[in-house]
C-alpha cells in the first residue's frame, strides 16, 4: 500500500447499518467501511445501493441516520468530532425513512385569511377564516359545508368528535373575535356539488373579548377557550340545554331582528372560569382529563386542574406566547412559540428549572402555531409569519423540512392523517403538503 492508500483508509469509518424498518428495506448487517466525509445523502445512496443489490426492484428513497438517538445532519466526520465519538470502533447507524413532504396538493382557496385549521378528522379538514365562516373540506379538496353565523373573524376551530366516532355527523366548535363560540353539527354524507350552509345550533357566550383559542378535553364532553379578556372558560358540550334555552329566548326577544331568520338556537354559558393570566390567553391545550395548559401574552405558561379549576403550575418564559401544544414522550412536553422566532420545548416534569430543553430557531419571525405529531414523539411542526411551515425532529436542531408554499404570513398549521401538514395563511389559501412518512 502506498501513502495515498493509507491516508484514504484513515479517512474511512467502519459502519454497520441497522434499522427497524420491515424486511424489504433491511440492509445486510455486515460492517462496511465508508468515507468519513459522507453526509446524509451519501449514506442514503449507500443504503439504497445495498438494498438494490439485495432486491433488484428496489425503489431508491432518502433515509435519515441516527447515531445514539441523534440525527446525523453534518458530514460523518464532523458529526463524530462534534459528538466525541471514536472513529475506531464500528459505528452503528440506524436508518429511518426521511421525513419530508413529497407532494404539494392543490391549495384550497378561501375568501379571506385562513386563521384556523383542524386536521384531526382523517377525511375532513376544518378551516376558520377571517370572513367569519368556517369551512369543511372533504378529503382536502372540495369545500362541502360552510358554517356561518359569526360576525367576526374566526380564530379557532375544532372537531369535537373524532373521525372514528362520527356516526354520520360531524360535531364542530368555532371561536371568533365576536366574543362567542358556536357549536355546529353537520352530516358526513355530503353532496359534492354544492356548498351546504350550516347554522350553529348553540352559541356559547360569556367572554368579553375575542376568543383566541379552543381546546377539547380527551373525553370529548368539555371544551375550554382562552380569550383576550385574559380568562379561560370551560364549557360543557352537551347538557343543560334547558338552561341555555331560556337564555336564548330572552336574548332573542331583545334583538329579534338579528336572530329572526335563524333556526332555534341554544345559548350556553361557561361552567367555570380560570382566572390568573394578566393578559390575553392565546393558546390552550387539554392533553389529559385533569390538566389544561394555557399560554398567554403575559409571558407565562400555566397548568390548571380541570376539576378544581385551580392553577397548579406556572412558568414565565420572557416572551409573549402565541401558541402551545402538548405532546412528545407521554404527551408531557410543552412546545410553545411566541413573539420571537424561537420554538421552545419545555419539560414540566423537570423540577426546579425553567430552561427549555429544546430550542428551535430557524424561523425568522413570530411563530403562530405549533403542533406535535399525533403519534410520533419526536416530530412537530411550526408555522411562522415568515411564510414558512417547518418540520422538526427533537433529535436534531435543524429543521427536517421547510414548506414554502405560502406567499404571506402563515397563521395556522396542523397535521392531517398523520402524513400531511395543512396550513393556512394570510394569502387566503389552505396548503396541504402530503407524503410525510413517519413510522
Amino acid at each position, binding site marked *: 500500500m502506498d501513502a495515498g492508500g493509507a491516508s484514504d483508509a484513515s479517512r474511512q469509518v467502519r459502519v454497520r447499518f441497522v434499522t427497524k424498518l420491515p424486511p424489504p428495506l433491511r440492509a445486510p448487517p455486515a460492517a462496511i467501511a465508508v468515507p468519513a466525509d459522507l453526509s446524509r445523502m451519501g449514506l442514503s445512496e449507500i443504503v439504497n445501493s445495498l438494498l438494490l443489490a439485495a432486491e433488484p426492484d428496489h425503489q431508491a428513497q432518502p433515509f435519515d441516520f441516527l447515531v445514539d438517538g441523534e440525527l446525523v445532519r453534518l458530514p460523518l466526520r464532523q458529526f463524530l468530532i462534534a459528538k466525541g465519538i471514536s472513529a475506531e470502533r464500528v459505528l452503528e447507524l440506524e436508518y429511518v425513512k426521511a421525513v419530508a413532504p413529497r407532494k404539494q396538493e392543490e391549495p384550497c382557496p378561501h375568501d379571506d385569511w385562513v386563521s384556523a385549521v383542524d386536521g384531526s378528522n382523517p377525511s375532513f379538514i376544518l378551516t376558520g377564516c377571517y370572513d367569519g365562516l368556517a369551512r369543511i373540506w372533504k378529503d382536502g379538496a372540495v369545500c362541502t359545508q360552510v358554517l356561518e353565523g359569526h360576525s367576526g*373573524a374566526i380564530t379557532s376551530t375544532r372537531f369535537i368528535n373524532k373521525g372514528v366516532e362520527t356516526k354520520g355527523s360531524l360535531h364542530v366548535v368555532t371561536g371568533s373575535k365576536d366574543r362567542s363560540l358556536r357549536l355546529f353539527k353537520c352530516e358526513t354524507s355530503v353532496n359534492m356539488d354544492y356548498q351546504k350552509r350550516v347554522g350553529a345550533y348553540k352559541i356559547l357566550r360569556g367572554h*368579553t373579548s375575542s376568543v383566541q383559542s379552543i381546546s377539547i378535553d380527551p373525553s370529548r364532553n368539555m371544551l375550554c377557550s382562552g380569550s*383576550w379578556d385574559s380568562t379561560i372558560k370551560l364549557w360543557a358540550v352537551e347538557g343543560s340545554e334547558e338552561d341555555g334555552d331560556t337564555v336564548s329566548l330572552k336574548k332573542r326577544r331583545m334583538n329579534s331582528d338579528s336572530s329572526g331568520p335563524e333556526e332555534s338556537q341554544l345559548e350556553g354559558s361557561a361552567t367555570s372560569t380560570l382566572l390568573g393570566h394578566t393578559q*390575553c390567553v392565546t393558546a390552550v391545550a387539554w392533553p389529559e382529563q385533569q390538566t389544561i395548559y394555557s399560554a398567554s401574552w*403575559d409571558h407565562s405558561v400555566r397548568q390548571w386542574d380541570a376539576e378544581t379549576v385551580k392553577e397548579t403550575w406556572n412558568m414565565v418564559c420572557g416572551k409573549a406566547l402565541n401558541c402551545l401544544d402538548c405532546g412528545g414522550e407521554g404527551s408531557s412536553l410543552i412546545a410553545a412559540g411566541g413573539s420571537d422566532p424561537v420554538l421552545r420545548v419545555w419539560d414540566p416534569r423537570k423540577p426546579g428549572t425553567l430552561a427549555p430543553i429544546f430550542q428551535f430557531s430557524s424561523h425568522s419571525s*413570530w411563530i403562530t402555531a405549533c403542533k406535535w405529531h399525533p403519534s410520533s414523539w419526536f416530530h412537530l411542526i411550526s408555522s411562522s*409569519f415568515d411564510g414558512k411551515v417547518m418540520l422538526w425532529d427533537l433529535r436534531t436542531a435543524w429543521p427536517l423540512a421547510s414548506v414554502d408554499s405560502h406567499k404571506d404570513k402563515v397563521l395556522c398549521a396542523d397535521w392531517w392523517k398523520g402524513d400531511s401538514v395543512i396550513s393556512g395563511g394570510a394569502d387566503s389559501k389552505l396548503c396541504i403538503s402530503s407524503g410525510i412518512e413517519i413510522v
Partner: protein
Amino acid sequence: MGHNEGEHEQERDDLSADDSLWSDDVWSEGDEGSLSFEDSGEGSEAESDEPEEAAVESDSSEDEVAPKNTVGDVPLEWYKNEEHIGYDISGRKIKKRDREGRIEAYLRNADDAKNWRKIYDEYNDEEVQITKEEAKIISRMLKGKTPHTNVDPYPDYVDWFEYDDKGHPLSSAPEPKRRFVPSKWEQKKVVKLVRAIRNGWIKFDKPKEEPNFYHLWGDETDTADNKRQGLSYIPAPKPNLPGHEESYNPSVEYIPTQEEIDSYQLMYEEDRPKFIPRRFESLRSVPAYEKALREGFDRCLDLYLCPRTRKKRININPESLKPKLPSKKDLRPYPKTCYLEFKGHSAPVKSLSVEITGQWIASGSSDGTIRIWEVETGRCLKVWNVGGDVRHIAWNPAPDRPILAAIVDHDLLLLNVEVGSEEVQMKSKELLRIDESAPEDDADDKKPAVRWVKNEKLDGITLIHHKAVSNVDWHFKGDYFTTVVPSGDTRAVLLHQLSKKHSHHPFSKLPGLPVAAAFHPSQKMFFVATKKFVQVYDLQKAQLVKKLESGLREISSISIHPGGDNVIVGSKDGKLCWFDTDLSTRPYKTLKTHSKDITSVTFHRKYPLFASSSEDCSVYVFHGMVYSDLNQNPLIVPLEILRGHSSSDGRGVLDCKFHPKQPWLFTAGADSVIRLYCD
C-alpha cells in the same frame, strides 16, 4: 634639740636598714654627738627646724627661703674669677668664701660623721647639709621608688560598692519632685520660640541637601528635575549620532553600488540620502567634509528658529473616561427586531395610537384614511375614509370607551371604533350622540372657539375649531380631552368634556405658540409645551405651577412619565430633554441623538423605556429608570437604534408609540408602513 636627735636616730636606722649604698663602713659609723650646723647660718637652721612640716605642707622647702644671691639665672662662670659670687638683696657684694684645703676637708670629714650629708651650693657659695628625710627621698628616687614612703602606688583595690540586696544601684532615695515638674524655664523658652515661629521671626528654610555624588556622564539638560525658575527649559533636540556608514572605512554592505548612486539622481532632492558612504585607505586620506559649515549653520538655524513647546500628555485609557453604564443584557426586554409590518396606507402615516389593552392600533395617514389594525396578525380591520389629511390620532384610554379622536385637516373628529361588547358599543354610541339644536350663544360677536357638530357620514362628532388644530390628548379617565391650536391668544389650549359636549379655554395667554399639551397620568395636572418652555398647570386651582425651560430651539413633542414627575420633550434640532420636575426646571439630561427633527417621544406605560423617532429614519430606544427614592436620579441608558424605515420626501419616522403591556414599539413611517419592533 633632744627631739630632733631622736628623729635623726630613727632616720639613720631606716637608712641603714634600707640602703646598702649609703651604709658603707666609712659613712655608717653613726656619731650622734653634735650637729654641725654652726657655719650654715640661720637659714639652714630654719630650714632644718621644721623638716617634717615642710615635707607635709610643700614639696619644696627651698621656695620659702629667699636666696641670698640675687644674680639670677646666669652662668656662674662669669663670677669664676671674681672676688664675689654675686649680690645680696641690698646690692652688696657677697664675698667668696675661702675654699678649705683638701686635707682640711678630709679631716673634717673624718671628724664629722654627718659630713657626708653636706653639699656645696655653688650659687650661694655655701655648704648645705641635707636632712635625713631628704637623703632618704633621694635614695628612694634613685632606686626608682616613690619619693615618700607613705605613698603606696599599688594599693590593694577595695571594692566599697555592695552589689547584693540593694533595690537601687546607687541610691534608694526617692526621686526628687522636680524631676516630675515641667520645667518653668523650658516652658518660657518654648513659648518664646512658638511666638517667634508664629510671627515669622524664625524661618525654616531647610538647607538643600546637596547630593554627595553627581552623574558624571549624564546629560544635565535632560534630567527631569532640572527645573528652572520662570520659563521652562526645553532641551534642544540632539543631532543623530554617526553610524557605521559614516566611518572612513565602512563595511562593504554600507557602500552603495554605482547603480544605486545613479538612481539617487532620479529621486527628488529631499528624498536623496544626505551622505553617500565611501571607503578610504586611512583616516588621513578622508577629505574635508564640504557640507560641514552648511550643516552647522542649518543646525544653528534649527535651534534658533524652531519653536519648541512642551506637550503635556496624560496617559489615560479612553475606556475609563466613559460613564459606567449597566449592560444592555440586564435591561432587557426592550424592542430590538421588527417582526411585523402593517401595510395598507398609500401615503405617509402621520400618527398612530395603541388601544389601551394592546389589541388594536389606529393609524392616520395623509391619504385621508384612518385604519384600525390588529396587533397580533397585522391585519387591517377597518378603514375610514375621512377625506382629509389625518394629522394626529388618539385612542381613548378608557377601555370601555372605544372612541378615537383624530385631527382631520383643521378639525377634530371623534369616531366610534365599534370594538368591544354590545354594551360598550351602545355606550360609546350614546356618548357620540349630539343634539343638533345645541344652543349657540351668538351674543358673543367673536366666533366661538369650538362648535360640536354631528358627522353624519362617519357617525361621529366633528369639533370645528376657530383655527387649525395640531394636537389632541386624552385625560386618563377618558372623559376630558384637550386640543391645541397653535395661536397666540387665550384660546390656544382648549379642554373638552366628552360626556357634556362642552369646551372651554381655561388658560391665560401663553409665552409663545403652544405645540402640544398632555394630561398628567394620574393627577389633576396639565402640561403645555410651547416652543421653548413646558408649563405645568394645576387644573383644580387653574394656576401655573412650574415652568420648565428646555433651552431647545423648538419643541416638537412631549411625553409624561407614567409616574408623572418626569417629562421628556423632543425638539426640532434633534435633541431630547429629560426633565425631572422635582429636581429642577432645567433639563436633567439633554440627549443629542438625532441628526434631524425629532417627531415624537414616548414613554412606556409599564417598562422603564422611552423612545424617540426622528425624520432621519431612525428610532432610538432608551432605558429610563425612575427610582422611587427621591435621592436617586433617573438612570438613562441608550439601548437600541431601530432602523428600517425608508425616507420619503425627506421625511422619516413620523410617530412612535409603545405597546401598553408588551415591550414593543410601533413606528409610523413616511414610507406609509407601520412597523412593530419586538423584544
